[in-house]
């Protein structure tokens, strides 16, 4: 195994060209408004709900989702499925709704940065049937340049999550709800 390593590196050294310069990437700015972010999220199959007061969050969740949903969330006292990194798969698989904190949103593509620390379990944002991400409206950036500039580190695991899971693998027909969440709502506080 290590012999392949040496062999590959030697071949790379022998074959790579003289060094070419690494460019500096400018921070292309853009529209970071709630309107822009909202229209893009809708365009990729998600919804945005404006929650006027963070204290109204449980009430809004109650209005949006049926009462008997099994909910996993570190943000709601109503959450009835406790989840942590050791939660067995069968328990995770039964979650109807996960309500998690998003760190910041990117207006140009509707994605939201969700680091591992906000997920309870790494698989929760994908295995849940429905996903709600809570996002502070002041935490919007325009483009991916500002997004990565906000990340001093990506931690152990983290994802830019943009809308519900989708596929168009059958005749290019768009179907929402492939393997991950069937719906994704952004709760703007």
């Amino acid at each position, binding site marked *: 195994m290590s012999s392949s390593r040496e062999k590959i590196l030697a071949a790379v050294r022998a074959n790579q060209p003289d060094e*070419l310069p690494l460019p500096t990437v400018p921070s292309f700015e853009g529209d970071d408004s709630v309107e822009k972010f909202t229209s893009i999220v809708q365009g990729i199959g998600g919804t945005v709900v404006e929650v006027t007061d963070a204290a109204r969050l449980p009430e809004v969740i109650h209005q949006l989702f049926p009462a008997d949903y099994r909910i996993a969330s570190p943000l709601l006292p109503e959450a009835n499925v406790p989840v942590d990194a050791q939660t067995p798969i069968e328990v995770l*698989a039964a979650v109807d709704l996960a309500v998690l904190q998003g760190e910041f949103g990117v207006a140009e593509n509707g994605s939201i940065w969700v680091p591992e620390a906000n997920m309870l379990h790494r698989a929760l944002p994908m295995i849940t049937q429905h996903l709600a991400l809570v996002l502070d409206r002041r935490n919007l950036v325009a483009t991916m340049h500002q997004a990565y500039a906000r990340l001093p580190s990506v931690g*152990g695991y983290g994802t*830019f999550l943009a809308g519900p*899971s989708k596929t168009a693998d059958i005749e290019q027909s768009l179907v929402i709800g492939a393997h991950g969440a069937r719906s994704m709502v952004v709760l703007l506080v």
Partner: protein
Amino acid sequence: MSHSKRSDIFLLDTERTTWHDATLWFVRQKRDKAVYATPEFQELRQLASDIKDHTLSRLDFYLQQFEENARRNGVQVHWAADAHEHNQIVLGLLQQHGATRVVKSKSMLTEECHLNPYLIKHGVDVIDTDLGERIIQLRDEAPSHVVLPAIHLKKEDVGDTFHLHLGTEKGNNDPQQLTETARQHLREKFLVSEVAISGVNFAVAETGSVVVCTNEGNADLGVNLAKVHIACMGMEKLIPRLSDLSVFTRILTRSATGQPITTYTSHFSKPAEGKELHVVIVDNGRTKQLGRPDFRNSLKCIRCGACMNTCPVYRRSGGHSYDFTIPGPIGAILSPNIDMRKHASLPFASTLCGSCTDVCPVKIDIHTQLYKWRQVLGQEGEIPASKKWSMRLLSRVLAKPAMYGLGGKVARQGLRFLPHGLTHGKGYNPWAIARELPEPPKQSFREWYAQQMVKL
């Protein structure tokens, strides 16, 4: 079999060919809309190209930097010189964990290495979880596109396949219902798999992270439920800095499908507590391509598929006609590096219109390389005899004005008097299979020109 022979098979079904052509062109148009809505897109292309050029010029450094940082993060890094070693490493890891149930998300590299048949031969139940990949796995076919693996199929084909393998009702061809069936079927697999294998879209040297982009969420679901995640990457996936991802995440999906970003753009840097993360770095011919100055920048490819969607030949011949893991224009410049003789016809599967080069988000000069491969193949004697001899004859005629003049005269007379069946014979004049030769003019331009000069 040559590309054109295999295309003939695809072209037998006119209706399907027309649909294939139109559908891929529609994807190209979605790409245009997304690109035109991004004012700095051309600057991003240049940056992406420059970052990749730089990375390839210091690849030894970045490979080692990535390895060092990944190891510090608790990731186990493996090196594979070729496809066989890659497959051995993956199987070894599975055996070490006593794993027989494996889910896999999309990875063109594992297709290139033919990992699935290798694992199946060794008793591993490996399940592709990307919907398109799962469809073709059930049909025992290869992907026909790097982003849309089942684009050669119609919903009726998928309906039949699911009826046969997943017990859906016969004649149920509804994409929504078929996708729901696949969701339920694959959830069972996700929940019980011990190991998950993924591809890698980008590997960040400065953080030791691998980035995986999907729309379905199958990669994240698989690797986050399994005890062991094996990420397989070609060595050219490296980029130097985390901030470079801002450039690549902005161009990848806009070029591929016209989306602003994939649903999941996931960064894996450390294994979850109590779990394992392995990265297999694969050469398999890449260092050889790095040593070909005319062709090395094909290693900048980020597998967006834009060159396929735009290519008039790919759209009308289908991915399987290329008989190579990566089809289309990019496949036609990557494949001769792997096996020049086997893939000798691919650089000729192009009109050299240059559309592939125009849409390539990392500015690979694809059509120039297609042209250059033709020169290499000519020198290596990998050109069919009919083409070789007709070109030789033509170069002689074109070099002698008198012979050219005589040839023209004979052709003008011949076309007038010879029977149609003789001048348009399919066997020796393939040009005329779908075309009519022009009405021969009375005189040639040169004759006319000489007359005008006399009049003056």
